[in-house]
């Protein structure tokens, strides 16, 4: 009798112990599930950054993101037709599954003069998952941002979409798919965009160097090995390095170079860099300036260890990689900003961590934003005209290239040390483990914008928050019948 009772007690204790393990796991699992279709506007928790709390009656009074466009009556100055296809690419003699725009990867380079209206007509010929084109670094009107499920529906096979925006800022940019971007960008669904000053090119030789890794193979402009560009002694050369990969790359040269621009913004008072490399983070751009030696020697600009741009004729040996990279915090000379960060009226935290848990029902070690896992991430709310400071800190154990859509921010400080050089403008910021950054931007582009990690696999793992303007709403949803999958 006593043994039967003790067996029963033992069974109950066992069941309770098992439940004590399983119940919290089941609860966490179900809490992480997201509906098949959801609007990013309802995601996570609203963060007003200490500013005015908006009255969010989005459905009835808000302006639709669809209405935030350039004047439809204005005629385009630059017209481009792009046809997207899913097909095998030939890279370095090997066949790699991927994507093309007008038959090539990268797609065509788009060039415009400052102030011109660019009109790109996109047609999806055969990309099964659908596509959408995002203009990386261009502060386009919100409806043109090209994020499936946020600013438009994905363009299915046979579908079309027309992007129209004004090239207001001179500089080096790129465009890429923002539908299943972690697969499509890696597979080559991207191209380059250069906005030139009306006075014309500043340098005699102007080179695009879009770095991309296909199937493990390093390329510049889709070609493995070195890119050769003719240049004469004494000529000024601008090399526009665009990092289309998921990780940072280092660039350096065998002759002094200057960093003329970062992320489309000119550096004020650039000086010669001799014993440092320049880090270009994932999604970021750096315009490097080189003066060809008067003795006719060629110049070698390394774009990571695996590839190089060779200016002039000859076969210069690869220069050793400098041990340290240039610190843009103190590079160049200071000048006035277009707004005053001291008058900031919103302050946000973007704290990147990593912890075990469930995302979309999958157990794992996931990226967290302000301690929470996707989709319980902050929705940063601003009002047009606000001056915003964002404090980024990374204690996740890995590097993250942080990319804010629709805006350029200026770096105020890193690890508490204030910037002393040229205004350092970014749309893609390399945030190393254990680093903190304070960046500031002017909220001057109403819309709903992604603020995410441009290591696109990290984004697909949930490292995505949004910046939302008060009074703007979007009719588009992630998932749903259009199967929008922005990351």
């Amino acid at each position, binding site marked *: 009798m006593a043994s039967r009772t003790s067996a029963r007690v033992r069974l109950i204790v*066992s069941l309770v*112990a098992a439940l004590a*393990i399983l119940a919290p796991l089941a609860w966490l699992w179900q809490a992480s599930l997201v509906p098949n279709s959801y609007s990013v506007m309802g995601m996570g928790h609203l963060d007003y950054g200490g500013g005015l709390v908006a009255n969010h009656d989005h459905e009835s009074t808000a302006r639709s993101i669809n209405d935030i466009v350039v004047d439809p009556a204005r005629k385009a100055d630059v017209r481009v037709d792009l046809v997207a296809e899913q097909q095998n690419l030939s890279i370095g003699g090997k066949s790699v599954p991927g994507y093309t725009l007008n038959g090539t990867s990268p797609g065509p380079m788009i060039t415009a003069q400052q102030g011109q209206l660019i009109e790109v007509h996109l047609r999806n010929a055969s990309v099964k998952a659908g596509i959408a084109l995002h203009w990386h670094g261009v502060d386009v009107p919100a409806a043109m941002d090209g994020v499936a499920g946020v600013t438009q529906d994905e363009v299915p096979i046979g579908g079309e979409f027309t992007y129209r925006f004004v090239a207001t800022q001179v500089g080096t940019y790129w465009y890429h798919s923002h539908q299943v971007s972690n697969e499509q960008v890696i597979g080559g669904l991207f191209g380059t965009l250069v906005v030139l000053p009306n006075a014309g090119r500043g340098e005699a030789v102007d080179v695009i160097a879009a770095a991309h*890794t296909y199937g493990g193979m390093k390329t510049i402009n889709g070609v493995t090995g070195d890119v050769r560009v003719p240049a004469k002694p004494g000529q000024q050369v601008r090399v526009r390095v665009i990092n289309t990969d998921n*990780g940072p790359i280092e660039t350096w040269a065998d002759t002094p170079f200057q960093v003329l621009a970062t992320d489309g913004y000119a550096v004020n008072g650039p000086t010669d860099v001799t014993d440092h490399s320049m880090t270009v983070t994932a999604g970021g751009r750096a315009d490097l300036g080189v003066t060809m030696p008067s003795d006719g020697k060629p110049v070698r600009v390394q774009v990571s260890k695996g590839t190089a741009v060779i200016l002039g004729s000859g076969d210069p040996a690869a220069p050793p990689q400098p041990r340290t990279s240039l610190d843009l915090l103190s590079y160049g000379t200071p000048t006035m900003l277009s707004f005053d960060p001291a008058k900031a009226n919103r302050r946000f935290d973007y704290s990147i961590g990593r912890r075990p848990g469930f995302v979309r029902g999958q157990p794992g*070690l996931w990226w967290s934003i302000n301690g929470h896992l996707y989709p319980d991430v902050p929705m940063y709310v601003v009002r047009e005209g606000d001056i915003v400071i964002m404090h980024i800190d990374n204690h996740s154990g890995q590097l993250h290239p942080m990319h804010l859509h629709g805006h350029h921010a200026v770096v105020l400080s890193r690890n508490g040390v204030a910037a002393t050089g040229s205004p350092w403008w970014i749309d893609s910021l390399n945030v190393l483990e254990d680093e903190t950054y304070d960046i500031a931007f002017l909220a001057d582009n109403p819309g709903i914008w992604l603020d995410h990690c441009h*290591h696109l696999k990290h984004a697909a793992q949930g490292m995505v928050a949004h910046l939302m303007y008060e009074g703007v709403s979007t009719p588009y949803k992630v998932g749903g019948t259009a199967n929008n999958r922005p990351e």
Partner: protein
Amino acid sequence: MRTAYRVLAFAIAAMVAIQAGAIGYAVFAQFNWIEEGGTFDKAAFDTGAPGTGAFMFHALFAGAVLLASLAMLIVSFFAKIPQGVRWALFVLIATIVQIALGVLSHLWAGIGALHGAAALVLFGVAVMAAMRARKPAAVEEPVTAEVA
């Protein structure tokens, strides 16, 4: 339940061996790729340079080991193996420590050496647990004292 406990314990030991194999393969695939002129960086890692699949498998499979350890602990509550719960806890703790060391190795590579060595501890504890569940608990033979 006893069999389930035993199978899970041996499975965890086997999974540790698979994890070690994956890393061995990945390191040499990467080494050979670099020898042949390949460049290995974050982008190469993400676009399928040789060895990267094995690295990613290693990271994901750790989750499977953790799930197996949890399942073993739950099974141990019902398996009536002497000290079975204790050994299942040892396995779970060794698994969590091993995963933690793996994560921390990203901060400091030196911890990676401990991560490699601690795999042997997890393997050993899992095999010990499996051995404990080898046969039904022996019924103690009554000892009869011989009367002279």
